[in-house]
């Protein structure tokens, strides 16, 4: 490269830590990071299913592992991540789904978002209530 080409290239803005520059990028990054919580939970569950298939002793070992303070703490982190995942999932839904027309009018993005949040909250309450009803 000639001296002139190097001079023309000029200043290249570094990309290091780009997502910390703007709250919008931060929210994007947090949303993407929730995927690790979803993956971690899938792995925890698949281990549980394998232990279940191995018999009662193995299953009880998995249950005991879930009772350890570290596991509880991890699940608190997973719970917060899942809530953020659900929140952001419906936040971006108006942008990811096809345009929705009801009665000749385009359904507002905020309506889709709020409906999603409401449905998610209702499902959460119903599932926990069902488990509570079936507790032993």
């Amino acid at each position, binding site marked *: 490269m000639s001296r002139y080409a190097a001079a023309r290239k000029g200043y290249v803005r570094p990309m290091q830590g780009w997502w910390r520059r703007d709250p919008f990028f931060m929210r994007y990054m947090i949303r993407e990071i929730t995927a690790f919580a979803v993956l971690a939970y899938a792995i925890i*569950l698949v281990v549980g299913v*394998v232990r*279940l*298939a191995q018999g009662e002793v193995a299953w009880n070992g998995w249950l005991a592992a879930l009772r350890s303070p570290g596991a509880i703490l991890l699940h608190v982190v997973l*719970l917060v991540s*899942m809530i953020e995942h659900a929140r952001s999932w419906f936040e971006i839904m108006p942008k990811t789904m096809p345009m929705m027309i009801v009665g000749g009018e385009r359904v507002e993005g905020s309506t889709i978002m709020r409906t999603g949040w409401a449905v998610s909250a209702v499902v959460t309450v119903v599932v926990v209530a069902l488990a509570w009803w079936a507790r032993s």
Partner: protein
Amino acid sequence: MKLKRSNAPVFWLLFGAGGMLSALFGTALVFLTGIATPLGLMGPNAMSYPRILAFSQNWIGKGFVFAIIMLFAWHAVHRIYHSLHDVGVPLNAFTKLICYGTALVITVVALFALLSIGF
């Protein structure tokens, strides 16, 4: 000229289904299996061996557990794979294999374990 069919829609569909399922059920499930039951809030036998075994032998229960595990995994790896570029990790055949391979392994292990539990 024959156009090569893209496999992207399949991954996108799994991503979308897993995203929706986890957005609806993830919070409740993590709370129930990871916090409420281990702390004894749901009673001492909420996730006892006979109960969970019966749940997983029922075809609806089996299907639910399989769908949760499989779709959560495919959703997560798809999102992680597409975020790699943003943190400077190249998207290539190797990173793709690592990401989607993880979901495939989880799916196959879950399938075999659930089938070996029986009906």
